[in-house]
């Protein structure tokens, strides 16, 4: 469960790791979206938006910007 909480945190840019209750709720919502014919990825995102109040609070995707900025700083040392 801890692994899944971490994955969800990263995947949906949450500030905190979600509780087991929230994860359960997210899973149920995702499954119900999937059963209406929405694909898994989109269903998961829609459910996350509905369940997690801190949805997309942090952008974990811009790794390249952080790395290149730090490399530029390292060059100066």
């Amino acid at each position: 469960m801890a692994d899944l909480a971490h994955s969800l945190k990263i995947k949906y840019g949450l500030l905190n790791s979600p509780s087991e209750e929230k994860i359960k709720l997210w899973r149920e919502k995702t499954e119900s979206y999937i059963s209406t014919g929405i694909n898994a990825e989109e269903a998961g995102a829609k459910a996350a938006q509905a369940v997690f109040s801190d949805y997309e609070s942090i952008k974990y995707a811009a790794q390249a910007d952080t790395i290149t900025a730090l490399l530029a700083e390292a060059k100066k040392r």
Partner: protein
Amino acid sequence: MLEFIIPVITFILGFLVSRFTMTKKERKDHLARLQENSNKLTADLDEKFQGFTTALNKYVQKKDKPNLDDFFDIATKGDSYFSQCKIICDSILSGNVDKTAIKNTHIPVIKDVVEKTLPTFYNTLQEIAQKKNIEYQGTLKKENYKSIYGVYDKYVSQS
């Protein structure tokens, strides 16, 4: 004789059909597995990213001059980060990642890795090594990152 053969053929056909097609539930389970795999790959990459940036931060913010260990810590943690990118790309190329997740989650990262992070990483380490007289032979060789460039060619350069 025919009475014997027909049930056998029906049985074999039935077996083959069920073996090579998926029921609705099996298909749903399969998609869920691909999705879970994608989530795990993303979480693992994040862990390597944390390690990489911690090493870089340590180097950048060190009070005294950074030493050889600090330099090679960046080199090693950077390698681990790019290795995880390779694992993601291997997984994509072997069809083990959900299609939408490939497009929305993994491709933006891989695009950045090819266009920015990988070349900057090697250039910077070479520059630092030269300046500080460190024996460092690392250069960016495409053949070491086959799957990363494979994914880039397949999903980015054609779009």
